């Protein structure tokens, strides 16, 4: 199973009340946002490929908490959660999903292709594995500039088989680049389970021959993610080079909206939902510790619902891009010399 049994999670909790509540809020925002996106897709308001992050919320939420101003994030096409965690505007994300001018890419990118220079989010990439060398390049730029920023390159278990990942690993280690590779191992690459696609299924070991340290993490536990993330980010930031975190996680929905997900049993999904859900897990810890009551959390839930509703309304009210947008942004029109 992807995650450790509950009983093993007896380590003392190393997070403040404020942190735990903030994590709760963040994960819930992603969950509700994605549920809404799924709904809008069903209504035909969102089209094409739409990959939901439901179930994996603890990974980006925990990792984002380890970053400081100027650190960069890059990922693949399952990117909505990463953008929300980076602080990108939910209205802009949702309006991009609906292909409107208010979207973060002015409607030209869609679900898989959003970016924010301001929030240091570098996409949003549709080609499996491509973000790994790109994220390594972000780290190269940090080292080149001599700053102490770190980049996070997220990718899936399936992406971990692409050759360019290993070309990037080699350079990152050779040149001690400040990059943390976050493998989101949700046990499936589309319909292919890790056992069927990977000769070494313990993906954190994939850096061994490049001398990159790696670690397996319970990606359904936001506090465990944060703890491992801090260690990895510290390692990269201090000039020791790259680090690999293999997040054991799970996606509840199909690969994309068009995936019937017949390759796994309903019970498998139900088991993880009811025993390892990252939001429910944190919620019970919060309540056990007396950090908040059910009612307090309900209030947060309502606030989140309002934010998501506003994003959905905005995404439907925002007009389609003007036809003239077709021709813009192909190249930067600037005379040189």
């Amino acid at each position, binding site marked *: 199973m992807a995650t450790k049994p509950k009983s093993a999670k007896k380590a003392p909790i190393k997070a403040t009340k404020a942190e735990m509540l903030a994590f709760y809020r963040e994960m819930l925002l992603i969950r509700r946002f994605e549920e809404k996106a799924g709904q809008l897709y069903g209504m035909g308001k969102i089209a*094409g490929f739409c990959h939901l992050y439901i179930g994996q919320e603890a990974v980006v939420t925990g990792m984002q908490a380890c970053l400081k101003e100027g650190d960069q994030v890059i990922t693949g096409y399952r990117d909505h959660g990463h953008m929300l965690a980076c602080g990108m505007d939910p209205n802009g994300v949702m309006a991009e999903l609906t292909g409107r001018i208010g979207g973060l890419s002015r409607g030209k990118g869609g*679900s898989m292709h959003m970016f924010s220079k301001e929030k240091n989010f570098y996409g949003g990439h549709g080609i499996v594995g491509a973000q790994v060398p790109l994220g390594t390049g972000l780290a190269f730029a940090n080292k080149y500039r001599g700053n102490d920023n770190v980049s996070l390159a997220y990718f899936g278990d399936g992406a971990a088989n692409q*050759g360019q990942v290993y070309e990037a690993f080699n350079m990152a280690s050779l040149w001690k680049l400040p990059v943390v590779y976050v493998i989101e191992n949700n046990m499936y*690459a589309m319909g*292919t389970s890790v056992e*069927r696609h990977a000769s070494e299924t313990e993906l954190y070991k994939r850096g061994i021959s490049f001398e990159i340290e790696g670690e397996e993490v319970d990606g359904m536990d936001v506090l465990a993610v944060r703890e491992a993330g801090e260690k990895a980010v510290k390692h990269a930031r201090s000039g020791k080079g790259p680090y690999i975190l293999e997040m054991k996680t799970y996606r509840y929905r199909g690969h994309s909206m068009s995936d019937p997900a017949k390759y796994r049993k309903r019970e498998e999904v139900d088991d993880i939902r009811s025993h390892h859900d990252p939001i429910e897990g944190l919620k019970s810890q919060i309540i056990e510790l007396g950090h908040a009551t059910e009612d307090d959390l309900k209030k947060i839930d309502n606030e989140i619902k309002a934010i998501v509703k506003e994003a959905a309304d905005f995404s439907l009210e925002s007009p389609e*891009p003007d036809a003239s947008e077709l021709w813009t942004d192909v190249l930067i029109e600037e005379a040189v010399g």
Partner: protein
Amino acid sequence: MSVDILMPALSPTMEEGTLSKWLKKEGDAIRSGDVIAEIETDKATMEVEAVDEGVLAKIVVPEGTENVKVNAVIAVLAADGEDVTKAAPSRPKADKAGAVSDADSVKEAKQAVPEQEDPKPKTPEQPRAAVVKDPSLPEGTTFTDTTVRDALRDAMAEEMRKDERVFVMGEEVAQYQGAYKVTRELLQEFGDRRVVDTPITEHGFAGLGVGAAFAGLRPIVEFMTFNFAMQAIDQIINSAAKTLYMSGGQMGCPIVFRGPNGAASRVGAQHSQDYSAWYAQIPGLKVIAPYDAADAKGLLKAAIRDPNPVVFLEHELLYGQSFPVPDVDDYIVPIGKAAVKREGTDVTLVAHSRMVGFALQAAERLAEEGISAEVIDLRTLRPLDTDTVIESVKKTNRLVCCEEGWRFMGVGAEIAATVVAEAFDWLDAPPVRVHQKDVPLPYAANLEALSLPNADDIVEAARKVCEGAF
């Protein structure tokens, strides 16, 4: 016998270099492998190793000489026991022409050229691909409406039954039954030895397929879409397409690379590219892009049997469309033959893949306006059946080239140029091209619609070439 030591080319681009230093002097004994000199190229300082043994009889190009041409004689090696003083360069001309320090002889060498006969050998004419006719169907043949998806599936299944060497490989082709269900039920019939799920490693499995083809198997490599074949294009072109030629005809590569190509629906720029023109440019490949189910089936079967690498471009938006497929055993459509899908007299509409459907719709509407359009489905892009196009243009005197991809350097450009070159006198108007707008494909519904070509664009183009004709 003395041996000339020549200025070596130390990089594929090097044409000349500086002989910076001699590490041996005249009279020194030389053993093969000895470093005898240093040379500076545009990129680096390199050492020159002796190949032959003997005594360095004469240094022809002194150290410090710049712009020494590749293959100029730089020294002469006397064989052991030979009279060193008598050793002389065997090719004095080359020596002089090579060493720029000897300015006069350079001039001499240059002047000599025009007096010679044209030294460039004549390129023999490129043989034309033989054009085969579609097999005529026996009288009374029945047809079954079949989707393009199932026609492709049937083609693979039939060839796999026939030939044990044929296997299918790709992402989600087996247990998932194909991302677009084109390989549906193949796993059940042929098992996982012949229907192979791969990891997401396009460059790797494309290369592996090429290797297996070299070894005599007949792989069908499915790309989930051709957008992802960009990860693998090096193996397709450098390994699959060029090896027969590079091996002097020994090493054939019977492989099919297939999958959906071009736009899907609202999947954005990275998932929507038409690669027709890319692959069609490559000698050593055959490139097929069918429209209807019968051609999809007959051409895929032909592709699997072809001893060459074939790029087989399908279209996701056609997979679900049904067309009549003849109920005959072993239905094969010859590669390299276009089909006239509708006869007409006023304008020729040339298209391939999904654009054929739009061209047929356009022809229908043009007929209502009194314009009779002939629709040609290219079916194969390489080798391109220009005869059928030219024959049609000689009748209609007007040409519209339709493709889903970008115009620039595109399929339409090739066809228009060929028609202009070979049927100029028959043209009554300049050919017009219909194509995608010159931008990456946008996601927004309205922009996507503006970007992709459709039947309206073809109607408009046809009207334009027919302007003033009636």
